[in-house]
């Protein structure tokens, strides 16, 4: 079981990060405010988790303007999708582990 736990990705070590990645897996791109509402998180908290995922190279950021309003959209990178899929696979293996 120890190696099963080690197979988990430490980058996804929070519910908010799991939530961000889940939303990005099933949508092409998600806006900051949509994520905020979905996860019921504060601006600062969400931003720091997004930054963490971005540094890991798991998500990409697109900044644009919608009229005068700035808009930040996030996408899961190929690397991020792969990492998240293997994280889910590791979680499933852990759950089905019988001592």
């Amino acid at each position, binding site marked *: 079981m120890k190696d099963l736990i080690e197979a988990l990705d430490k980058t996804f070590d929070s519910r*908010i990060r*799991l*939530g961000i990645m*889940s939303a990005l897996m099933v949508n092409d791109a998600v806006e900051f405010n949509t994520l905020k509402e979905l996860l019921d998180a504060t601006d600062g908290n969400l931003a720091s988790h997004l930054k963490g995922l971005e540094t890991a190279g798991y998500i990409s950021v697109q900044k644009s303007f919608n009229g005068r309003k700035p808009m930040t959209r996030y996408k899961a990178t190929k690397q991020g999708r792969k990492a998240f899929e293997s994280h889910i696979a590791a*979680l499933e293996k852990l759950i089905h582990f019988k001592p």
Partner: protein
Amino acid sequence: MGMDLFDQRSALDLQRDREFGLIFENFICSGIWKCKNPALTLKYKVLCIMTQNQYSEDLAHIRSMMERSSRFLSLSGWAGIIPGMLALAGLAAATWCIRQAKATGSYDGNASQDHPLVMQLAAIALIVLALSIFASWYTCMRKARLEKQSTWTPAIRNMLLHFAIPLMAGAIIVGWIYQKEQWQMLSPVLLSFYGLALVLVSQFTLRSVFWLGILEIALSIPAGITGWDLPVLALGFGFAHIVYGIMMLPLNPTSTPLSTSPKGD
């Protein structure tokens, strides 16, 4: 605020998880569980089950976030029942109009485009459509607000777009039916295009809408038989909606029980 609670909870959880992981790792590394002491083996099993619970909650959270970010789940049962009843009322009014027209002798089974009966029926249909859209929208938004879901998300926009496309295609065909006075085609076209819209929209909302759509498409077969169109329309637009709506009422379609309850209890 709810969000602060969430933060505190996850921070606490993280801390607890780390401590717990440490104990757990020591436990495994020590190899103590391999000995035959039944108390220690039991403790190891309990530890395993506790971690497993936490990871299955993680998975449940992932699943619910994927659902909530891509589907509109606050579909109210009343959004089926009210339009179903409106449809039945509209069809009753239409039957009455047709009977009146037959009694006065102005209608003998064939009607031209500008026949007053056609205008009356079109007016009834449009009123029922407008009231139904309003009722569905209002009840769904009310339910979403009650469930503290946001009422204008990309998931909802996606749902509306994919619902509208087959209906627009159907509207084009209905326009040609009106132009060419092929009234016997009207009911099958209405039912099958509405069914297609439901099948498509089931990707963006509750999955069970798929089966309602299949039913509507299947009903377009008997709808083509002369004289059957009004009863079949009543079945497809009236009773099917009412029954489906009643089935939705007691259910709580948001599949987020684990993400909202405090974990670890």
